[in-house]
């Protein structure tokens, strides 16, 4: 995705806006990655450890969404 090594924009407004854009991109990557892991049979504990967060944190953030989409059954 990087066409060139990342460089900091001259304008601080652009540089700070890039931080927000990257955070939203990271959120999208997280959604897709957690979803794929759960589909592959990873437990919430596995996903949490891989992300470096608590099981409660990852469950709180993703369980409702994946459950609503029929991807996870909740629990574990």
């Amino acid at each position, binding site marked *: 995705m990087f*066409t060139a090594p990342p460089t900091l924009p001259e304008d601080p407004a652009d540089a700070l806006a890039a931080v927000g854009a990257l955070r939203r991109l990271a959120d*999208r990557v997280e959604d897709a990655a957690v979803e794929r892991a759960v589909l592959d049979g990873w437990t919430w504990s596995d996903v949490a450890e891989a992300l470096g967060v608590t099981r409660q944190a990852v469950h709180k953030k993703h369980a409702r969404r994946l459950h609503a989409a029929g991807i996870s059954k909740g629990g574990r």
Partner: protein
Amino acid sequence: MAFERFTRDARAAVLGARQQARTLGHHDVEAEHLLLALAGRPEFQALGLDRERLADALAAEEERSLASIGLAGAELEPAVAARAPRRLRFATSAKLSLQRAMKVAAARGDRRLTAGHVLLGVIAAERGRVPRALQIAEIDVEELRAQI
């Protein structure tokens, strides 16, 4: 000012912002989602706000910001459940918009907080996604403020 002081329209804007964030697959409710929700209201459309145009401007702002650090074509296969109901956080930018709306209402001596106050609170931001997107959408903030 407590939520009870919000008019029905102001409450609808806050709930609408949650819906906007969810529809976009975002994890946080931000000021931009309040703006999108308010732009769906006929009285603000009459002032030149257009939800589609603002959504495009926000997307363009994101693309431009990613490009500014050399990240291009950040197309990612979206999560299947990206838009499923999720627990959303009410982020600082959205809280700040509401705080500014309350200040505007208080300064005007209005007892209730209206959707117009919320819009004034949102467009009061001088930095961040909202002013950047408004600029891309070529919306004159001063003119808009004067009309609300």
